[in-house]
C-alpha cells in the first residue's frame, strides 16, 4: 500500500533511492545534494566535459509533457556522467496509440533502462512510476502536475547559496501563480527545510491555494509589501491559459499589479537577487530591464541546473548500484 515520501525515496541507510519530492528528505540530504553539485560545477568548464561515474548506464528521459529546458539539462547532465541517454517524447507516441503508462514502463524495463527521468501532467505520476519500477531502477521527478519539481527547487537553492552563502536569516518572496505551480511547492519545502527565516508568497487570491498558509508561508496580495526588504525574489511563469477560466482579467492588469520593475525592485534589499524558472514572459512577469539587469541570476540558474541534475542522477544511480550488488552477492 502507500508508503511515506521518506520510505519511498530513501534506503535503510538514508541514501537516495529515488528523487520524487523535497517532502520528507530533510536538511542533511538537501545539503548533501547541494555539496555534490558543487563538486560537479567544474566539469562543465573543462575541455573534456565528462566524468565516467555512470558509464554503461542507460537513462531514459520519459517526458509525457513537452519541455525544452528541463529535458535538455537532464540530457546534458546524464551525458556528462557518461551515461547513455534515451529521449522519449511519449505524448506524441505511445499514449496516442492507447498504451498505458505501465505498459510503456514495462517495455522500457525490458530494454534494461537503469533510470527514468519523468515529467507528466498528473500529480503523483513519478510516485506511481517509482512504486511500479523494477528493483535497481531509479526514478527522478522532472515535474508532475502541480505537485513537485524537486530538481528545479534544488537548482534554485544552489543559486541562492552561491549568492547568499547561508540560508539562515534570508527572506524569500515567491511571486505569481502559486496555485498551479509545482515549482513553488518544491521551493517552499526546500526553503523551509534549509532554514530561511521567512518565505512569502505574493499573488492575487485566484492564483493561491485556498489555505496557502498551511504550506508554511506568509501570504501577501500587495507586491510592494510582499517584496519589501527581501533577499531573494523568485518570479513564477504565468501560463497564458490562466487568462481563461476567470483567474485573471488581463496580462496588462497582472503586470501592473504583480510585474517586477526596476522601481519595485528598489523596495527589496539592495543586494537582492532575482530568479525565474523560465521561460520568461517579458512584460508579463517582469520588465526586460530587470530580466537582463545586474540583479538577475536567471541564466546562472540554467547552468547550475546541470550540476544539480548530475548530482541527483549520480546519487540515485550510486544507491541503486549498491542494492543491485547486494542482490548479486
Amino acid at each position, binding site marked *: *500500500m*502507500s508508503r511515506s515520501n521518506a520510505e519511498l525515496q530513501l534506503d535503510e541507510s538514508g541514501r537516495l533511492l529515488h528523487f520524487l519530492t523535497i*517532502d520528507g528528505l530533510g536538511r542533511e540530504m538537501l545539503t548533501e545534494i547541494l555539496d555534490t553539485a558543487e563538486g560537479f560545477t567544474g566539469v562543465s568548464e573543462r575541455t573534456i566535459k565528462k566524468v565516467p561515474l555512470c558509464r554503461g548506464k542507460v537513462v531514459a528521459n520519459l517526458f509525457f509533457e513537452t519541455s525544452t529546458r528541463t529535458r535538455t539539462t537532464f540530457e546534458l547532465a546524464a551525458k556528462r556522467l557518461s551515461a547513455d541517454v534515451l529521449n522519449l517524447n511519449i505524448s506524441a507516441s505511445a499514449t496516442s496509440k492507447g498504451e*498505458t503508462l*505501465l505498459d510503456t514502463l514495462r517495455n522500457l524495463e525490458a530494454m534494461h533502462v537503469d533510470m527514468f527521468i519523468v515529467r507528466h501532467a498528473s*500529480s*503523483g505520476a513519478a510516485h506511481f512510476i517509482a512504486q511500479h519500477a523494477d528493483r535497481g531502477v531509479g526514478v527522478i521527478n522532472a515535474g508532475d*502536475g502541480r*505537485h513537485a519539481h524537486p530538481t528545479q527547487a534544488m537548482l534554485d537553492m544552489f543559486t541562492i547559496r552561491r549568492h547568499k552563502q547561508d540560508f539562515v536569516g534570508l527572506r524569500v518572496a515567491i511571486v505569481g501563480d502559486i496555485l498551479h505551480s509545482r515549482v513553488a511547492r518544491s521551493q517552499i519545502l526546500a526553503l523551509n527545510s534549509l532554514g530561511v527565516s521567512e518565505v512569502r508568497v505574493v499573488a492575487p487570491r485566484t492564483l493561491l491555494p*485556498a489555505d496557502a498558509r498551511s504550506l508554511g508561508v506568509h501570504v501577501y496580495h500587495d507586491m510592494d509589501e510582499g517584496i519589501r526588504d527581501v533577499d531573494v525574489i523568485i518570479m513564477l511563469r504565468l501560463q497564458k491559459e490562466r487568462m481563461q477560466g476567470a483567474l485573471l482579467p488581463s496580462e496588462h492588469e497582472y503586470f501592473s499589479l504583480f510585474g517586477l520593475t526596476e522601481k519595485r525592485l528598489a523596495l527589496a534589499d539592495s543586494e537582492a537577487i532575482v530568479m525565474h524558472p523560465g521561460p520568461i514572459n517579458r512584460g508579463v512577469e517582469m520588465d526586460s530591464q530587470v530580466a537582463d539587469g545586474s540583479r538577475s541570476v536567471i541564466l546562472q540558474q540554467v547552468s547550475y541546473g546541470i550540476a544539480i541534475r548530475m548530482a541527483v542522477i549520480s546519487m540515485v544511480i550510486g544507491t541503486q548500484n549498491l542494492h543491485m550488488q547486494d542482490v548479486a552477492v
Partner: protein
Amino acid sequence: MRKKKKDISILGGRVVDPANNTNQITDLHIAGGKILALGEAPEDFVPSETIDATDKVVCPGLIDLCAHLREPGAEHKATIASESAAAVSGGITTLCCPPDTYPVIDTPAVTGQIRHKARKAGYCRLLPQGAVTQDLDGERLSEMAALKSAGCVAVTNAYTPLANTLVQRRAMEYAATFGLLTIIRPEDQYLSNNGCAHEGKVADRMGLPGIPEAAETVAVARDLALAETTGAVIHFHTLSSASAARTMAWAKREGRRVSADVAIHQLHLCEMDLEGFDSHFHVRPPLRTDTDRDGLRDAVAKDVIQAICSDHQPHEPDAKASPFPDTEPGISGLETLLPLTLKLVEQGVMDLSSAIARLTCGPAGILGVPLGTLTPGQAADICIYDPAQRWFVNAEKLLSQGKNTPFHGWEMPAKVTHTLLKGRLVYSLENEETAE
C-alpha cells in the same frame, strides 16, 4: 418447476429489527417466503429446516441505496450476477442500481433487461433507478411514467448532475407527478472543475486539483430551494461535508420532505489517507477533512442522514493503475458495508439498532418500499451475522469482480453467516468455506 418454499425457524439469535423496536434474543419463523412470527411459533407450524443462531444477530436483509453493477456495458468491471453474489455474502438482499450503464437506464427495455438478469442470477432484489434525462444528457426528460411502470423506484442523473436549473426544476416537477423520488448527487460541476481531491491542506500540498466543499453545499442549497418550489420529494445521495449535513439538520427541523445518505467509506476515511497517492482512496465526492467525517458520523447517529450505502463501484485493476488524478474514482464496497457500519457501533458512534436501521428501514423508508423489517407478513429477507467472528479484509479474496478496496488489511468486527431472500437461503458462510 418452482421449488416449494421451505418453512424455516431461526433459533436463539438476537433479533434486531429497528422498525419494530425489537432487540432481543428470540426465535424467528418463516413460512411461504414470509415472516410468520417472532418468539413462539404457531402450534401447527412444523419447520422443515432450522438455523441455529445462538450468539448471532438476526436482522432484516440490508438495502443498499447505490451499487454500480456495471451491466450492461462494462462487464469487464463487473456483472449483475457477480455483484449480487457478492452482495448477499455481505448480508445485502436489496440493491439499488443507478442508471449510468451503457446503454443508460432510460427506457423500459433496459430496465426490464436488468431486472431479468437479476432474477436469473437469483441472489438478491434489484431495484433500478431510472435516468432523469434521456441518455443522462441533462436536457431532455426521460419517459419517467414508463420507467416507473417498468420497475424503476426513483429517478436520478447519477454522476452527471443537472447544470441547468430550469431542467432540474422541470425534472423534479415531472417526477413528482408520478410520485417518483428524485435522487440527487449534489455537485456543482463548475465548482468541482475536474478536481480529484478535497480542496484543502492535503490537496494543496500534494498539488492535486481540488473540489471545494462549496461544490456540494451550493448544489444542496439550490436543490432544496427547487424542492420547496416544486413540492417534490428529493433525496441527497453520498454527502461528503459536515456543512451539508448541518443543512440537512436544518431541513429536518423545518419539516422538509428531504432525506440523505452517506457512503460508508466517508465515515471511516478522510483526506489524510491520500498521502502517498494511493488511487484506492480516489472517490467522488472526495474524502474531506476529519472534521467533515466526524460531522457526517454525528448526522448519521442523529438520523439526520437516514441511510448508509456502499456506493459500490467495482473496477478492473487497470482502472486504478495510473497516476492518482488519471484513475477512475470509486471503491468496491458491498462486502465491507455491514462490518464497517458495525465498526461504528464498536467505536461508540451509535448503538446497534441505529446502525442496523441505517442499512434497513432507513433506506426502505427513503425509497417507500415495504422492505427492511421483520414484521410478520413481510418478505423474509434476512441477514444473520456472527458478532464475534473477526476477520481481515483481503482485496484479492473479495467475491466482487472489483478488488479495488482501500480497506485491505483492516480488521472487521463481524461476519455474515446466512443470508435469506424471501425465505430462501442465498448465502451461507458454511457452504462458502466448504467450497473453498
